[in-house]
């Protein structure tokens, strides 16, 4: 059973902050099939389409029948731990400073054996549940956990290297004026965050739900407008050193595409808030977060963006908005790469139309802001990189993979 982690103490200002290091990062191209699985929280292995056998590690031909038709498919994650060892003097800096480090060899029920990181509660000869996780290098690794929940399971030292659990961490939700931001702040606080800073732009404007945030224990409203360069810089100067998880809930939704809109002023607003706001945020908070990636129990761990799934495929009814989201999606990949040396995860949460005033005329299903907030918490706990919340988002993901042209045509209606 895992001991619960203790609440972090205040930093000793006389000690140098431990800098982030990265576990080994090199992988073969084919092996990134696991990266995709880990990013989405799926357990996938290669399976031979010719003989049906699962195989691992990633191969270019089936070792049973030499077919090249090895496809990454969802696989049953159950296995049995055959043997374990504890590496005490690893040759790599990342593991050496985290030693002792426990790994094992797991025989999967579906066939292959996998070398895997071990949760402390895994025992030899006992069933385990395998998953792919993204480690601090951003690459996929196999991680075996006990099949059933155990006490304080998420507090396992090795697991916490893979997850971005809000417990004991300090969170900054950038926009508390939106329903998503409000729900996210409440959900993260409930998930054990030490404090949730909530950005409020134009504090002279009242907003719905303000009373839910103001005066709440552990929730601190801060004057913040992502689109305002000075505001982002000022706030980062104040709290940048204690933001462990940043949840970018910047939201600027306006209907319309190109021809039925006149001029660029609305588009500019969209870009101002969503895209330039993202840049301001990244420049203000990114460098410190990257530097604090190994800073103890409450190290900096994750950056979350809430994006429209139409970042992936333009929805002409909200065409310009879709484009602003696509720009943010592209930028998020840049930020992911730039945060990577700090071991900071970047998670994009894709949603369909949200149940707010801007999608009022859109028929259901729509996503409840609370569902998005819960997904953010679940994604952080699971250490994910991509999440699709709600039926519309999930459908668009699947349809995009199946036939992008069909999706493009069908979004035009």
């Amino acid at each position, binding site marked *: 059973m895992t001991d619960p982690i203790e609440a972090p103490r205040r930093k000793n200002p006389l000690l140098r902050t431990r800098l982030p290091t990265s*576990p*080994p*990062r*090199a*992988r*073969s191209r084919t*092996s990134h099939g696991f990266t995709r699985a880990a990013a989405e929280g799926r357990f996938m292995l290669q399976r031979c389409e010719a003989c049906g056998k699962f195989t*691992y*590690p*990633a191969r270019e031909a089936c*070792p049973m029948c030499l077919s090249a038709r090895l496809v990454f498919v969802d696989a049953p994650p159950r296995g049995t731990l*055959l*043997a*374990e*060892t*504890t*590496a*005490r*003097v*690893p*040759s*790599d800096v*990342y*593991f*050496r400073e985290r*030693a002792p*480090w*426990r*790994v*094992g*060899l797991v*025989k999967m029920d579906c066939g292959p*054996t*996998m*070398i*895997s*990181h071990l949760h402390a509660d895994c025992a*030899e000869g006992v069933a385990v549940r395998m998953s792919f996780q993204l*480690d601090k*290098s951003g*690459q996929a*690794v*196999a991680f075996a956990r006990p099949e059933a929940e155990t006490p304080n399971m998420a507090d396992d030292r090795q697991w916490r290297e893979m997850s971005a659990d809000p417990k004991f961490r300090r969170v900054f939700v950038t926009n508390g004026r939106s329903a998503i931001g409000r729900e996210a702040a409440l959900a993260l606080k409930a998930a054990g965050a030490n404090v949730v800073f909530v950005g409020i732009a134009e504090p002279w404007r009242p907003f719905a739900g303000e009373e839910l945030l103001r005066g709440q224990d552990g929730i601190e409203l801060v004057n913040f407008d992502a689109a305002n360069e000075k505001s982002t810089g000022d706030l980062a100067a104040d709290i940048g050193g204690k933001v462990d998880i940043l949840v970018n809930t910047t939201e600027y939704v306006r209907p319309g595409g190109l021809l039925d809109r006149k001029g660029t002023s609305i588009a500019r607003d969209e870009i101002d808030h969503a895209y330039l706001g993202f840049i301001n945020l990244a420049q203000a908070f990114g460098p410190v977060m990257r530097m604090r990636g190994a800073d103890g129990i409450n190290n900096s761990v994750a950056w979350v963006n809430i994006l429209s799934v139409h970042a992936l495929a333009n929805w002409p009814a909200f065409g310009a908005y879709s484009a602003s989201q696509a720009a943010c999606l592209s930028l998020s990949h840049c930020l992911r790469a730039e945060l990577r040396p700090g071991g900071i995860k970047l998670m994009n949460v894709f949603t369909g139309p949200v149940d707010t005033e801007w999608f009022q005329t859109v028929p259901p299903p729509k996503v409840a802001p609370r569902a998005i907030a819960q997904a953010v918490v679940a994604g952080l706990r699971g250490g994910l990189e991509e999440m699709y919340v709600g039926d519309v988002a999930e459908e668009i993901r699947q349809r995009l993979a199946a036939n992008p042209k069909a999706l493009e045509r069908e979004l035009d209606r």
Partner: protein
Amino acid sequence: MTISLRTPYDGIVMAAPVTIPYVRYSIDSAQWWIGRALSAIVAQAGIRVSDIDGLCVSSFTLGADSGIGLTQHFGLCVRWLDTIPLGGASAIAALRKAARAVQARDADIVVCVAGDTNHVDSFRSTLENFSRFNQDAVYPYGAGGANSSFALIARNYMRRFGVTREDVGRIAVAQRSNALRNPHALMKTPLTLEQYLAARPISDPIHLFDCVMPCAGAEAFLVMREDTAASLRLPAAKLLSTIERHNAFADDPMQVRGGWAMDIGELYAMAGIRPDALDVVQTYDDYPIITMMQFEDLGFCSKGEGAAFVRQHDLTVGGDFPHNTSGGQLSVGQAGAAGAYLGLVEGLRQVLGMAGPTQVADANLCLASGFGMINYDRGLASGAAILAGPSR
């Protein structure tokens, strides 16, 4: 009794065992170490460089070079060339290929050489870039390197067959005793079983004295026909038999046996001897547990009886089962790919009566084995050779 249908190694011999004494760290390159081995072997055999017409090389640290670059580097003009990247199985594999080359007269005098340097960071970099499976699915897991991989194998093996650390430790302790006779061994202090047991854990159940010390060094020997050796007046050992196997028993969920178990019948049939006829045995000892596994797989005892075998025999130079007489990699050091050569070259010295302080009396028949390439969860390559001294 297995009958071997393979062409016998009639009149194929090995000669001129060369070891360039190891150092823990070297600022020189692998090319430098291989150059020293070539120079020594030419001197020892009394031949000219131009007499060498075959070259077989193994190394982890040559950088972009393979055998072909080395011919120009060392001024060799050969008509047969091979580069063997099989880690701990390289020496046996090199011997097999060279033997057939000289037997077929594709070459007359083949130098088999392995050498590696050891810079301060070269061990880590070798681990990191070892193989694709290693890179994808082993190294990112704690970066324990071979220690962690063999720890898993050892743990499973020990549990399954009731083997204790004391049993395994006897092998390491006996080898240290042998090493104290060898002036070139890097380990120069005695090792007791108590010290072995008290050593710090590296990757449980692997402890410090289960591990080899990476170092720099080189080893080499010559392969030729008996008539060539005679014309050079070189003492030479006959090659009786060899085996080689890769990726054996792929269906075993964990490795409890190596490829030897698949080919052992043929090994002894081709040599025309039984295991108990051997005078000296040189196993591949990257970890003593692997040596114990080889005692079983090479036919000295049954599977699961390795521990009892170790308890019942004295593995030192003067014992009833002289084994890894130079001290083995555990006590001499592991000079990269040269580690594959260490046992074979020592075995050659033994049957030629050239082993000096580690010489086993009347050693005539020797078995040397190789084991290598823990690509993912197990060692993939295995090999063995039986040599006979000139008196046989």
